[in-house]
């Protein structure tokens, strides 16, 4: 007879068998037996957050920068509800998370016991699946299944709710592998047929105005996918644009790359999307920040959509060729088939796309990311550009909060590798970047990790600085401080008659002193001429840093497609603002 283990021991055995090295969490009454067991498992290190939301975002940052699932351990009731934002964030951005939550003992479930909540009920819409384990002999099967569901198909968060009495009870442990028999989000790798590939290649060959539109699916598919994507783009000679989540899959400084597309994407990327005759969507989901008004989205193009999740296809935009597949698998077989019959395609096809490239160059000449710099006051775009220039020669990981600074980071920081860019895109969670940076730093010791932040966002999870200090994680919090919720302020300026309702934060803390009180380093830059020196100082310090970069309060993020407008009607900059205030009310 196999040795019987307690539920808490089973949890750790399962984590060990899943090769988990770090768990992010916060103890409490209903998970104490699991915390008690922690000391007996030296291969697993627990990172104590200051709030369960922080633990969740840290686990996300860990997952996104390492390609491994993030593991989260929280208590019942408030512990679980605090984790909900992070779970939803992971659900929207397809990040594999396994959340283990404590629950009140089974005999108390449903009695409104202390720190009881319906955790599986609350998290049902924000997880791929969740389980309430009521029998200790189910626990090992459920835990292994949880890892499988989180990491296969389109990745996402899962939750396992374990009542306290189950954590004490003795039961059998078994390592279950690949228990999912059926397709889960296209989990069983759908073999792409040759006829699909030939159709794909045929569309490529017929096109004279093509564009690749790639997204987070390329990153999620693993580093191989980025390698193949680069190969395919160079084989075809086609232009490529990327969504916010896909940045880094293709080198940001390559001439074939048109920059990010979408609401704050470049003029050339958005116009190319609008005017193309072939759109090749790889691992993106036609999100509303990308498509704008659906009826007028890229009206004249044939569309190919590659996605691992069948429900992503046809959800927002009808396409001409849908391929349900993992990106790596598809690209590998596509490239192989393409090369067999189309030697030297780039050169022979040059003529056909030359007009298209000429047009793109004309759009590029607009230099839509330009801004009017100043020598008196730091422009936020300038700050991001300087940060990029001063960090591009080392392997740098960037996280962000949500708002203007996030868009400026996406526009002006050029990524060359996948998994170097962690930002909350789908849910748009302010407060994401700081805890995410903690997870990134844990997964990538010795690397430079910078959270490009806004002062409003970062205050939402500022308490996690204490975590960074405790674990000696030298993360850099680079705050573009304009004292406003910048994106809210921008919308109010453009669309609500400059009624800046509640978007100004009075009584902000002194971030330098705040840094000191946490036991980390505070640096402030107020003028453009001291910026480089201060950034270099930040990079040199081998401790956590809060960098208070005092920037222009009135700067807006351009270019911008007002919502409800097609891609070829962008607002390029402040000189066009008059036009916006009239039209703005109609559009966004």
């Amino acid at each position: 007879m196999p040795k019987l283990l307690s539920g808490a021991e089973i949890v750790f055995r399962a984590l060990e068998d899943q090769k988990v090295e770090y768990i992010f969490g916060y103890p409490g009454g209903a998970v104490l037996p699991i915390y008690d067991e922690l000391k007996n498992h030296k291969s697993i290190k627990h990172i104590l957050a200051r709030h369960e939301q922080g633990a969740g975002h840290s686990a996300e940052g860990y997952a996104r920068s390492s390609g491994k699932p993030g593991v989260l351990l929280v208590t019942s009731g408030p512990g679980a509800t605090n984790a909900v934002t992070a779970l939803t964030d992971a659900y929207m951005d397809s990040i594999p998370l396994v959340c283990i939550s404590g629950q009140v003992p089974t005999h108390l479930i449903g009695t409104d016991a202390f720190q009881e909540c319906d955790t599986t009920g609350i998290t049902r819409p924000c997880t791929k699946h969740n389980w309430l384990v009521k029998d200790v002999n189910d626990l090992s099967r459920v835990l292994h299944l949880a890892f499988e569901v989180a990491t296969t198909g389109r990745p996402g968060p899962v939750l396992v709710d374990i009542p306290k009495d189950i954590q004490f009870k003795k039961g059998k442990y078994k390592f279950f592998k690949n228990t999912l028999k059926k397709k889960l989000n296209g989990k069983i790798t759908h073999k792409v047929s040759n006829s699909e590939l030939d159709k794909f290649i045929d569309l490529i060959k017929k096109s004279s105005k093509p564009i690749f539109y790639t997204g987070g699916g390329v990153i999620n598919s693993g580093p191989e996918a980025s390698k193949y994507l680069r190969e395919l783009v160079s084989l075809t000679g086609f232009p490529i644009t990327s969504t916010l989540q896909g940045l880094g899959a293709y080198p940001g400084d390559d001439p074939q790359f048109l920059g990010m597309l979408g609401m704050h994407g470049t003029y050339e990327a958005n116009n190319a999307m609008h005017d193309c005759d072939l759109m090749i969507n790889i691992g993106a989901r036609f999100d509303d920040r990308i498509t704008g008004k659906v009826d007028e989205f890229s009206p004249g193009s044939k569309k190919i959509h590659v996605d691992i999740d069948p429900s992503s296809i046809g959800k927002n935009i009808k396409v001409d060729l849908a391929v349900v597949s993992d990106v790596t698998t598809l690209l590998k077989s596509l490239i192989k088939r393409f090369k067999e019959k189309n030697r030297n395609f780039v050169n022979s096809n040059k003529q056909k796309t030359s007009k298209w490239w000429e047009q793109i160059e004309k759009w590029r000449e607009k230099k839509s990311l330009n801004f009017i710099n100043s020598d008196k006051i730091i422009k936020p775009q300038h700050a991001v550009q300087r940060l990029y220039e001063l960090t591009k020669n080392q392997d740098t990981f960037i996280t962000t909060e949500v708002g203007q600074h996030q868009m400026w980071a996406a526009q002006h920081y050029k990524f060359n590798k996948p998994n170097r860019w962690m930002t909350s895109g789908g849910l748009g969670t302010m407060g994401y970047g700081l805890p995410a940076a903690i997870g990134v730093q844990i997964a990538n010791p010795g690397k430079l990790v910078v959270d490009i932040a806004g002062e409003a966002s970062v205050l939402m999870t500022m308490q996690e600085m204490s975590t960074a200090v405790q674990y000696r994680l030298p993360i850099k919090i680079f705050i573009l401080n304009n004292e406003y919720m910048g994106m809210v302020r921008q919308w109010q300026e453009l669309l609500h008659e400059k009624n800046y309702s509640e978007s100004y934060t009075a009584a902000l803390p002194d971030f330098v002193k705040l840094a000191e009180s946490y036991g980390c380093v505070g640096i402030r830059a107020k003028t453009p001429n001291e910026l480089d020196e201060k950034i270099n100082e930040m990079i040199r310090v081998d401790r956590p840093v809060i960098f208070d970069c005092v920037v222009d309060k009135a700067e807006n993020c351009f270019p911008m497609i007002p919502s409800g407008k097609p891609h070829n009607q962008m607002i390029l900059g402040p000189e066009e603002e008059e036009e916006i205030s009239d039209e703005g009310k109609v559009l966004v």
Partner: protein
Amino acid sequence: MTKSKSAYSVPGKIGKIERHIIVVWVDNEAGVLARIAGLFSGRGYNIESLAVAEVDKKKHISRITIVTEGTPQVIEQINLQLKKLVPVHKVADFKRGEKDILFRELAMFKVLGSSKKLEKVKKICKKFNPVVLDKTNKSIVIQVTALRAEIDKLALDLKSLGLISTSRTGAVAMTKGSRIFN
């Protein structure tokens, strides 16, 4: 264009609404119905009627029949989203009015009245497989199986004869001939 200050795009054209019957085979485990219902409410889909029961005692498989309405795009999404749920085994989808599918709903009516009126009740129900479940000299409980519209009409007709209580199930469906759902 309507004036809008929203951060979101204005709605596009809406396609034609169709009524569909969706049959889902699921593991009969705790919370499974909540998952299905939550998917519908969370994504703004309709449930017109719902019928659920375990059909395989050994494997604990339940068969859920859902009547829903939506544009073809929405119906496709419902199918694909249902298939993604972990406890869902398979999903079948039929357009209302398809020829080789059988649909039935069951209803129980309680009518109070004189024996003359109650005889009339039996007569009206004749076409719809009536079963008299209970009868006294003042009341009758009668069961019928029919299509939704037929039951709607029946209930209306019985009103003047003293109908005081109606209980109905959601629709269940099955294919004609030797074909089975897959």
